[in-house]
């Protein structure tokens, strides 16, 4: 009964249709970027940028207290700007601590958390903090859907034009230079793309769940992927599945949508890991029988 009304509402209620379209786009976008983040062994980076993006949102809300309504209505713009600044800061610190990439992220995430707490407090909007920490795909607006659509188009075009260079630099930064690739430029391009995706994910899944949207479907797909392409396709399938199931769970049991989506993601990872173990075990016993 709940399932039937879910599907009816999915196409009859505007907010559900928006959530579905947003989910479909994010379901492809997050693992596309997430796969590169995993290759670069920087799984923590989306969290870091999310926290720094939060500084932009809190600053925007603070500015709005001086009577400028634009900053209250559209805090995501400053969120995006600060996400990019966070990305550049990570690159800057990463060069100072070449062999300790995670140090740069700890510095930026700490700074981001501290600054956002200060500005949320100054803006007297600590109540809206929950919304940005956990997000809600069910409350996205038409304007936000359009923003995600534009971001997806930009990311796709950049990947079509420079996908090879971005992948080459991600897999092996040292030797990419000898292939004629401007390593610094493509690191910068990727950081901008990542910052954009993190900013648009902020409203629908929230700061605390951004990383899981990007990384967990890729981690699940790595169990069965035999090539980069196959791993990416499997991760997008898992991601879309988790969004649809998550939406259904959120609608049916009235729970936060971002948390429901991420929980399904983790469940898929667990199931896939168990299946993989069973497959490996069966193959080993088959080999033993042949011997």
């Amino acid at each position: 009964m709940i399932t039937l009304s879910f599907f009816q509402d999915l196409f009859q209620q505007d907010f559900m249709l928006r959530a579905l379209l947003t989910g479909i786009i994010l379901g492809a976008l997050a693992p596309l970027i997430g796969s590169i983040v995993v290759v670069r062994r920087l799984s923590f980076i989306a969290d870091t940028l999310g926290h720094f993006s939060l500084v932009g949102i809190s600053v925007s809300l603070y500015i709005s207290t001086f009577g400028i309504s634009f900053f209250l209505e559209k805090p995501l713009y400053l969120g995006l700007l600060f996400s990019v600044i966070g990305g550049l800061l990570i690159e800057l610190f990463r060069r100072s601590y070449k062999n300790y990439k995670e140090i740069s992220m700890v510095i930026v995430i700490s700074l981001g958390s501290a600054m956002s707490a200060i500005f949320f407090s100054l803006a007297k909007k600590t109540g809206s903090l929950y919304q940005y920490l956990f997000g809600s795909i069910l409350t996205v607006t038409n304007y936000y859907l359009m923003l995600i659509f534009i971001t997806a188009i930009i990311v796709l075009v950049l990947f079509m034009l420079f996908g090879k260079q971005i992948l080459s630099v991600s897999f092996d930064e040292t030797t990419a230079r000898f292939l004629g690739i401007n390593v610094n430029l493509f690191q910068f391009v990727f950081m901008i793309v990542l910052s954009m995706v993190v900013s648009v994910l902020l409203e629908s899944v929230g700061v605390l769940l951004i990383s899981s949207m990007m990384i967990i479907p890729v981690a699940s797909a790595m169990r069965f992927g035999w090539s980069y392409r196959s791993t990416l396709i499997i991760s997008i399938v898992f991601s879309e599945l988790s969004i649809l199931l998550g939406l259904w769970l959120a609608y049916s049991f009235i729970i936060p949508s971002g948390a429901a989506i991420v929980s399904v993601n983790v469940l898929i990872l667990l199931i896939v890991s168990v299946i993989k173990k069973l497959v490996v075990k069966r193959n080993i016993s088959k080999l033993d029988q042949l011997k």
Partner: protein
Amino acid sequence: MLIEIKNLSFAYGHRTVINGLSHTINSGDYLVIQGKNGTGKTTLIKCLLGINSVKNGMIFFDGQDINVFGGWTRFGYVSQNLDDFNYEFPLTVEELLKFSSITKMQQSNYLKHLDQMGILDIVNQNINSLSGGQLQRVFIVRAMLNNPQVLILDEPTASIDKQNTAFFYKTVEELNKLGITIILITHTESLEHINYSHRLTMSLDLTTEVERKIPIEVVNKL
């Protein structure tokens, strides 16, 4: 490409690893840099490739100072233990070489080089299923995509068994015969498989020793 190293010194903090090294590598040379672990072999290569910035001493490529040199695509480099490469993520040999092929020349090159290296049959295999020897050859193919003038191999046989080591050195020798300058780093003392033209031995006490083999053509003229 003529490579001139002049009075090069390099230190990590207070620990000097290269002290006043001077050496010339001519076009088409096969240089073996030999020495125990910690004698500065990889540091020297990183200086040559601009990965370590040179503050004491000078390096020239065809007379051009390394600090203004921009022709890095003339180099092919296979790093030690491939430690900078993430080869745990699922990736086929073909995918690796395809996204490493930025120019049209590179795209047309990789199948030819795979064939030359005797590993055309593994083109669809996942790189984390390859043996150490196969992986090294794949990375040499990647380094060869630009048709480099200088190929630098840092401890290339570290993860290859003895049988494949001989075959590997033969392949490198053939590349050298095509006119490519080879710079090969090794910490092993047995060099019987390697037909090098000169050898630079680096020691822990920061001294260096150079041995130059007389080319056969020169011997015949004597």
